[in-house]
């Protein structure tokens, strides 16, 4: 393991003052700003999650049982979803970690369009500000759920226009990141880095970007049509005017299903890097993992109908979508098998990023497998819109993406800030998160399987199983929240410590680790860095 540290002027020191951040076009600073902003969103979304769980801890709940308070509860889960999806999980890995790491990994000085990168960040901030206005600006609360289904979202008094407009702006921000990444990977790779010598995180970010570029505009037009529906009464989605509310669902999921892969693919990329690094082994099945990222990107455009098995879509469409959904599980499974094979006979060490990566393997597998009964027409009739779905997607989105984000955050933290965090505390936080997560969400499979519907603010108090499981779930949520707090406290504390990070603390082999920690202004000390050895060449 390399312990060298250099002391050249790093990119933080190169320019000083608040303006050096406001006008920066340095991908590293933009990545850091994205990281701070999306972490704040994680905390905001998390606060709503804890309120939801507090309400459901007992059948009586903490809100009075009157109709107005139902809306309060509806607002909580809506804002939880909107914030987590649009403000945290979509930008967190690509725009925050990806922005920082991708140019380092390809051996470039910056992304292809640095100004567009900054514009992307500002659009994110503007989108967030509009969303915030929608929440506290005095409009009645948004209660549609993150899915904005018609006709309710046309009839409700809630802040639908403000929030959809916020999501529209955030979409632009996401598109800009996507375009930037694709072009950077195509055009700015270091000499020697052919496509099949790219680190797998790059393949993952590439596939993600394709989805961002192709799917997000469809969300854009959908949200614009929804706004037109409310303002101009165009009727396209309104059955009362001869329109079709199911068409809205088609449009929405045509974006939002690929969006779940926008969320998971970068996470998968991080796991490939981390598992190979801490097993000291060439990744098993490099090409299979790389190609499966692209396969996921392609197939994920063809499965959106599995969210609409019960929405009055034709049975034949349902059959086809069911089949295609099974198909998309294959490339995900290929990755899991390859990661496990990489572990086999590796010299595994259990640093914090690796602990998160291993819990990813476990949790993502559960998440993926529980998707299959949802993809099966007959079983989905029972499971649709129950807590089973809630448990499924939290296993993939939290157990998968967020855990991978935590893994990447710990992996790249020394590179990003130049300090080492406390390993022991990091591992303890990881274990608390793992336990808290499973207590919170495994109980929800039982709830859903026995028929507890999602999005309800109370439940039958005579059902003992439900009382128990909801109780468990709520306790788990607070354990989980506590774990996440420790995780961030540990990282922030490292900033004030004097444990300077070496350039390559984990002994990883990709180009990003050849830079200084933190990197200098234009990343590499050579003007044109050359890729010397293939990724994952461990002795």
């Amino acid at each position, binding site marked *: 393991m390399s312990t060298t540290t250099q002391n*050249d*002027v790093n990119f933080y020191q190169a320019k000083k003052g608040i303006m050096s951040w406001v006008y920066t076009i340095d991908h590293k600073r933009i990545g850091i700003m994205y990281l701070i902003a999306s972490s704040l969103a994680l905390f905001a979304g998390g606060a709503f999650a804890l309120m939801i769980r507090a309400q459901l801890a007992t059948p009586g709940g903490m809100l009075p049982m009157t109709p107005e308070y139902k809306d309060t509860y509806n607002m909580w889960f809506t804002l939880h979803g909107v914030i987590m999806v649009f403000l945290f999980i979509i930008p967190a890995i690509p725009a925050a970690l990806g922005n920082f790491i991708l140019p380092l990994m390809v051996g*470039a*000085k*910056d*992304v*292809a*369009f*640095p100004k*567009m990168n900054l514009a992307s960040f500002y659009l994110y901030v503007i989108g967030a500000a509009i969303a915030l206005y929608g929440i506290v600006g005095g409009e009645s609360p948004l209660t549609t759920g993150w899915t904005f289904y018609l006709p309710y979202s046309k009839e409700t008094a809630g802040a639908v226009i403000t929030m959809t407009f916020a999501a529209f702006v955030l979409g632009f921000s996401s*598109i800009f990141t*996507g*375009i*930037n990444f*694709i*072009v950077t990977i*195509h*055009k*700015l790779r270091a000499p020697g880095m052919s496509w099949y010598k790219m680190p797998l995180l790059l393949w993952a970010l590439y596939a993600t970007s394709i989805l961002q*570029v*192709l*799917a*997000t*505009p*469809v969300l*854009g*037009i*959908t949200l*614009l*049509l929804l706004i*037109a529906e409310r303002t*101009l*009464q*165009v*009727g*396209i989605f*309104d059955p009362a*005017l*001869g*329109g*079709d509310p199911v*068409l809205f669902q*088609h*449009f929405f999921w045509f974006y939002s299903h690929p969006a779940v892969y926008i969320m998971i693919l970068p996470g998968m990329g991080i796991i490939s890097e981390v598992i190979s690094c801490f097993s000291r082994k060439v990744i098993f099945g490099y090409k299979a993992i790389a190609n499966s990222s692209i396969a996921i990107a392609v197939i994920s455009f063809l499965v959106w109908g599995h969210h609409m098995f019960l929405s009055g879509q034709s049975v034949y469409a349902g059959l086809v979508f069911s089949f295609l959904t099974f198909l998309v599980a294959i490339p995900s499974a290929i990755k899991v098998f390859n990661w496990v094979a990489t572990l086999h006979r590796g010299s595994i060490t259990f640093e914090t990023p690796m602990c998160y990566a291993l819990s990813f393997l476990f949790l993502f597998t559960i998440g993926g497998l529980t998707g299959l009964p949802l993809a099966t027409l007959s079983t989905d009739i029972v499971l649709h819109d129950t807590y089973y779905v809630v448990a499924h997607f939290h296993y993939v989105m939290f157990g998968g993406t967020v855990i991978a984000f935590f893994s990447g955050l710990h992996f790249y933290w020394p590179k990003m800030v130049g300090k080492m965090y406390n390993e022991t505390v990091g591992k303890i936080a990881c274990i608390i998160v793992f336990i808290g997560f499973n207590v919170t969400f495994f109980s929800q499979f039982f709830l859903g399987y026995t028929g507890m519907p999602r999005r309800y603010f109370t439940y039958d108090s005579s059902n003992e199983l439900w009382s128990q499981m909801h109780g468990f779930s709520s306790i788990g949520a607070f354990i989980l929240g506590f774990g996440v707090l420790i995780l961030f406290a540990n990282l922030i504390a490292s900033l004030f410590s004097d444990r300077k990070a070496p350039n390559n603390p984990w002994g990883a082999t990709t180009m990003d680790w050849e830079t200084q920690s933190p990197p*200098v*202004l*234009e990343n590499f*000390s050579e*003007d*044109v860095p050359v890729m010397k050895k293939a990724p994952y060449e461990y002795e």
Partner: protein
Amino acid sequence: MSSKVDTNKFIPRFVSHHFSNADQEFESCKLGMWLFLLTEFMLFGGIFVAYVVFRTWYPETFESGAEKLDWKMGAVNTVILITSSVTMAVAIREVQLNRKGRALALLLFTVLCGMGFLVVKYFEYNHKFELGIFPGDFFSFMGDHMSNEHLYFSIYFMATATHVLHVILGLLAILWVSWRTAKGEFYEAYYTPVEMVGLYWHLVDLIWIFLFPLLYLTK
């Protein structure tokens, strides 16, 4: 950092710091632009899908709606836009040949065409509004029409208004490169912005070429 040679003096004026040469920069911009055009296609794709769905549901309504549009106006606009695409393409050629004056004239002619398109569209919209032909629930046309005809006009107005917005943005972009052409910033070795704006303008044109037959020539 300190060991680095200052390569800045060898690099032409417009190559940004993170590209190694002008070709790489040009190729990157071009790829970026094509990706952006792809997003525009997907955006309009949504409207086209809505069109297909409702045309399948209400075929007669769509014919009756299309009859209320003036295909001659649409045809004039089609000719105008195709002409403007040609002049835009030639303008780029002139920039590449360092003929600034001609390039500028052609760019401004393109702008003129675009404005002509908007004027025609204005008259078309105005006529519709006078007859009470509005989208959706505001549809108050008194003459002969089918029961769901407001939906046809919802799609007509959403599609054409989104397109008009693109025309306006395109015009602003062409004015911007015209201004820079006038200042003499483009020459055979550097004309990326003109080329990119040109691509964008062709897209705006192309979308209209789809919209025109679908909306006006339904019969």
